[in-house]
């Protein structure tokens, strides 16, 4: 499994706590694995909950009209990269 960067690890922790994923360890989330469907099995309701947690923690709004949403929510790595990029902007 590829290593999580510190930013990705922090986001993984947020993901696990905000969604109450008791059975998942943050460190075990493969940063390249799909968040939705097969791998982690999240759904759009989880995405909604995650978007609230991300706004609170990072002050970054995940917007409905962003055409890159599919890519942004595709993996921990993609989501983390998007958040870091938004914070820097």
């Amino acid at each position: 499994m590829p290593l999580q960067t510190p930013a990705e690890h922090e986001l993984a922790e947020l993901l696990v706590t905000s969604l109450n994923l008791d059975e998942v360890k943050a460190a075990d989330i493969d940063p390249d694995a799909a968040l939705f469907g097969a791998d982690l099995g999240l759904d759009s309701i989880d995405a909604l909950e995650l978007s609230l947690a991300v706004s609170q923690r990072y002050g970054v709004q995940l917007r409905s009209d962003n055409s890159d949403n599919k890519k942004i929510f595709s993996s921990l790595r993609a989501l983390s990269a998007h958040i870091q990029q938004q914070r820097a902007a």
Partner: protein
Amino acid sequence: MSQWRGRPEGGGHFALWLIRSISLHAGRRVARLILFPITLYFVLRRGPERRASRAYLTRVFGRRPSFWQLLVHVHYFASTILDRVYLLSGQLQHFDLRVHGLEQLDAQVDRGCGVLLLGVHIGSFEALRVLSQQRPEIRLRVLLDKQQTPAMTELLHALNPEMAASVIHAGQDSTAVVLAMREAAEQGALVGILGDRAREPEATQRVNLFGGDAEFPVAPYQIAAVLKLPLVLAIGLYRGGNRYDLHFEVLHESLRIERRQRDVQLQACAAQFAARLEHYLRIDPYNWFNFYDFWNEKLEAPASDAADTGMQPGERA
């Protein structure tokens, strides 16, 4: 589960165009006369809808409905489609619109944090337009699938561009849909969704409605819980003639759903919703507008069409 998606939109482009032209030029009284032949045609020609209507009415009445009752059922449906034209274009003077439970809605709206308004294919959701008079400052944003209901979408654009522009498109990626709902709620809007038809692969719960299990989507309860929105039931019962009774009822003021007990809780939410639908449908049963095999009973076409309409050979409708 999503059989309704396979059926033609009740009252397609032509029917809606016809109704719109007649209703706007000839007035509601004349337009309503035309509903009689349309109703008869629909009952005689649309077998699956007729069987669905009969299956539903049999459940509610406890016996097989007469042909006349099938006609009344479809006539109610046709009437509300016609009235859409007037309601959406703001011609509320045609109607005797009575609002019940507005104070319940008011109390939630006045908190300013958005409200999730749960509608259903019962009566007329468009009767909500009365709110634009009673509470003009409230912004209503309805979830609508443009691809699934092209005729309805077209009608809305023609009659009420402002409302059409505020529609949240249900056809887009589901993550985008829920994020759009969040944004609307954060602006204090009333976010309107329908709670009786699930789209694949949406999660559902099977609960009892009129003595049989049917599947209800659970997303409304999950969204209300995540966004901490009050969930208010909105039903515009058509009562015949020009009368509508619009009912508001708070289902959940603040819903909490624990991941560990999620299924049990969602099941309870869906069961409560179904019980309330029964309550309102008992008041006026002909308001049920899910003209498809809602209970998944595999309604089959009988050998003869005459037998299916419930008419004896030679009998006239």
